[in-house]
């Protein structure tokens, strides 16, 4: 038991237990970035419109599956909580949604690679890191977003996720410079690592929190 508990610690513990203990959030994140990794490949075959529809459809399906898993598997083990909505929480939610939308938009933009983005022109001399301003912005946005979440909720692995995903996005752009992008290897590798962590956490949750029959 913590000798000097505080309301902030209690809040962090509540959020951690509710959202990050079962690894489902990590699994969903891994699936989203795995879909983004195959996005250029399917785009080349389906065209931009159908590909976006496929991406959004799979995203909705994944979200529905993970919600069902949380309701049927995690909640009977971890317990049920209904959060309190305060003006401060509304502000945090709005900021998070805006940051997530901005980051997702930037990631999609770099994957779609439209002509007007003005990436480094193929040249015999190697480009410097500063030749990729949009990718650096994505890296920064992901690091800031995940670090803020990790700090606020006391979940250290989120710091790693920011570097992993931002770095993978930058690495893929540098690796595939000038070449038509197919399967995005670095992003798939980052998503794979997150999926492994999420899977391990999910198994740990199943073992640590058995379903209980008795109620207090």
């Amino acid at each position: 038991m913590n000798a000097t508990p505080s309301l902030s610690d209690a809040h962090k513990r509540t959020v951690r237990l509710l959202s990050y203990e079962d690894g489902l959030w990590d699994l969903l994140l891994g699936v989203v970035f795995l879909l983004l990794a195959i996005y250029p490949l399917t785009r080349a075959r389906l065209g931009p419109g159908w590909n976006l529809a496929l991406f959004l459809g799979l995203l909705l399906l994944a979200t529905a599956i993970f919600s069902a898993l949380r309701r049927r598997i995690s909640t009977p083990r971890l317990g049920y909580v209904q959060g309190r909505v305060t003006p401060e929480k509304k502000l945090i939610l709005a900021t998070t949604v805006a940051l997530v939308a901005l980051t997702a938009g930037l990631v999609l933009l770099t994957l779609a690679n439209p002509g007007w983005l003005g990436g480094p022109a193929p040249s015999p001399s190697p480009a410097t890191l500063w030749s990729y301003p949009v990718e650096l912005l994505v890296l920064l946005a992901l690091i800031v977003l995940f670090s803020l979440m990790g700090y606020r909720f006391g979940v250290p692995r989120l710091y790693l996720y920011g570097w992993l995903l931002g770095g993978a996005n930058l690495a893929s752009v540098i690796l595939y410079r000038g070449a038509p992008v197919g399967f995005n290897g670095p992003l798939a590798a980052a998503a794979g690592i997150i999926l492994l962590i999420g899977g391990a956490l999910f198994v740990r949750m199943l073992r640590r929190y058995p379903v209980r029959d008795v109620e207090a």
Partner: protein
Amino acid sequence: MAKDRTQAQGLRELGGVDRVVHEPARLMILMILYGVREADALFLLNATELTWGNLSSHVSKLEEAGYVEVDKGFAGKKPRTMLRLTGAGRRAVDDYRATMQAALKKPGAR
């Protein structure tokens, strides 16, 4: 002299602290409920790492004091006990925090 008087007053206030809230396990339950609208007993059990018996006994004391509302119902076919902080419970936590902060203030700190 005036500083001594202030310290003595702080210690006297500490003596009058709400003992229902002051017990560590009950304080933990109250603090978890403070940040949410409602939670079930299973969640409190996992969050506090108390045993069912301990949790049940502390929740009964909090309910008797009027700090916590207990709602016994069902989630599907399984029984579910929902708990939420009452207005009096929220005020008790706020008062407790203020009392402890004032009483444990370092000498010389503003």
